[in-house]
């Protein structure tokens, strides 16, 4: 009888299917995973430390680089936390613009996920389709904010600039065409026998375990748990929009796929509703201590020039206290916990990222399964290492 022993293999950090620089050490008995150990930190940039030495305005561009597929959503969570700390109100128009941008960004993030996840499993065509629609969204971002991947569009108190001429027609054209595109993706995957065999019944853990592992977002909703920050703690007028939370049943990779597809449809519907009802008015709160004065005033009025200089160089001093504000980002609950000691920079800048908690459940999901399923489970959790490592 031949001796049998476990084999250890190293997956990553440079592996196309780990979506970044994740390293997982797998101990295998044949093709079955006995034990897995994820190693993080390859992309650790010390963002929490860095932000402690910056003013509150200066930290906004840092947040773009957390989950770089969901930059608008990251800005959103951060500015909400600062606004909560300051206790300021955001104008209705700015709230609606934020919601539209966040939902378009969610669609774009889910499109990247769908394309790369399908590519990992072996279906190449969806990637070419999804990046086509993602490009439309990035073009909209470019016109609205001036940037594509890291637009840094949101500001404390509102947004940086109003919609340009003609953008409403472009967004309208996108939301009208998009449901048809979702049908295209579904034709390729939803009833595809290879897709079903690779995703059905893979990566299942119990609902209680998922909650214990702190899993949030579409991954948690795949287990049939109806937790969505947009409904649980509505922010930025989300309570005024009509949308549902899609949920799955068993929580396998296939359920997460279905949940994300339905979520894109609802996001599309939210953008459409916001576009129809977009209120008129200012796009940023007028608070001389916090928001920059209009550029025309800065060029013509000495008081505004001094104000601009003081805000840019010194920032502002929020009251002492601690707040936590979170949004439903594309991966799950993204929250910022800010502790202020009354100075112009945060005393503690804690980022609660969804991918970090979701990834902690990875070992539980893949142990006892086959090595080929690791790829589809990692893809289905939808991690971005930029926000796992921070």
């Amino acid at each position, binding site marked *: 009888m031949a001796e049998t022993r476990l084999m250890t293999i190293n997956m990553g950090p440079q592996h196309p299917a780990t979506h970044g620089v994740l390293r997982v050490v797998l101990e295998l008995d044949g093709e079955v995973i006995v034990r897995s150990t994820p190693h993080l930190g390859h992309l650790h940039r010390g963002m929490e430390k860095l932000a402690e030495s910056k003013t509150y305005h200066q930290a906004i561009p840092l947040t773009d680089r957390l989950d770089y597929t969901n930059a608008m959503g990251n800005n959103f969570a951060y500015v909400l936390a600062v606004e909560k700390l300051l206790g300021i109100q955001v104008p209705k128009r700015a709230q609606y613009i934020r919601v539209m941008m966040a939902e378009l960004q969610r669609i774009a993030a889910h499109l990247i996920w769908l394309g790369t996840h399908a590519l990992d499993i072996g279906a190449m065509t969806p990637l070419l389709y999804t990046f086509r629609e993602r490009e439309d969204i990035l073009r909209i971002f470019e016109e609205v904010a001036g940037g594509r991947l890291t637009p840094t569009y949101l500001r404390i108190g509102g947004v940086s600039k109003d919609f340009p001429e003609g953008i409403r027609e472009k967004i309208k054209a996108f939301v009208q065409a998009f449901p048809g595109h979702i049908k295209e993706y579904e034709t390729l995957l939803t009833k595809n026998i290879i897709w079903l065999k690779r995703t059905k019944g893979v990566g299942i853990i119990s609902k209680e375990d998922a909650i214990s*592992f702190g899993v949030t977002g579409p991954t948690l909703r795949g287990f049939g748990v109806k937790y969505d920050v947009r409904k649980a703690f509505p922010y930025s007028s989300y309570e005024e929009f009509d949308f549902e939370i899609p949920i799955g049943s068993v929580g396998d990779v296939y359920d997460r796929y279905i949940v994300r597809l339905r979520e894109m449809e609802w996001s599309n519907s939210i953008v459409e509703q916001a576009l129809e009802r977009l209120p008129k008015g200012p796009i940023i709160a007028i608070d001389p201590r916090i928001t920059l004065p209009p550029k025309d005033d800065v060029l013509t009025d000495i008081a505004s020039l001094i104000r601009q200089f003081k805000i840019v160089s010194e920032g502002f001093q929020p009251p002492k206290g601690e707040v936590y504000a979170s949004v439903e980002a594309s991966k799950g609950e993204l929250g910022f916990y800010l502790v202020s000691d009354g100075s112009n920079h945060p005393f503690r800048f804690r980022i609660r990222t969804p991918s970090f908690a979701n990834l902690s459940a990875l070992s539980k999901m893949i142990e006892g399964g086959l090595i080929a399923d690791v790829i589809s489970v990692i893809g289905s959790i939808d991690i971005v290492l930029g926000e796992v490592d921070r």
Partner: protein
Amino acid sequence: MAEVNLTIKKLREKFLNSILEVTTFRGEVTVTVTKGEVFEICKFLHSDSDLQYRLLTDLCGLDFFPQTPRFGVVYLLYSMKSNQRLRVKTRVGETESIPSVESIWKVANWYEREAYDLFGITFDNHPDLRRIMLWDGYEGHPLRKDFPVEGPDFDKPFVPEV
């Protein structure tokens, strides 16, 4: 708010001497508790049938250098039953350790490793207390207030020797 009041009431009934302070800021309730009872309080909040704080949204460290006790540990809990958040805070000294809540919420495993890595807070009964972000053999804890932003020695290469 009613549900949070219920939580506070229940905590006061059961752990009267361990609740140091209850504060509300911008509608968020923070309960400061003593370090010794933090595990029992967490266990109670998690398993009590009326409260059911089943989701540990976040766990992180704080450094109050040069105050003593030096560190703080913050638990942010969420109850799906009552749709309510609760923040539990405690203080821990530089040479002390704090009980791990890994046996209550599994996600605490990684959160506590992170606090250990970046602050140097030690957790008792943690199954696998290793660095998570930085490499083994790294000296220092970057999120401490006495750790410079640009690193301890700017001229030294910031990579491990191979």
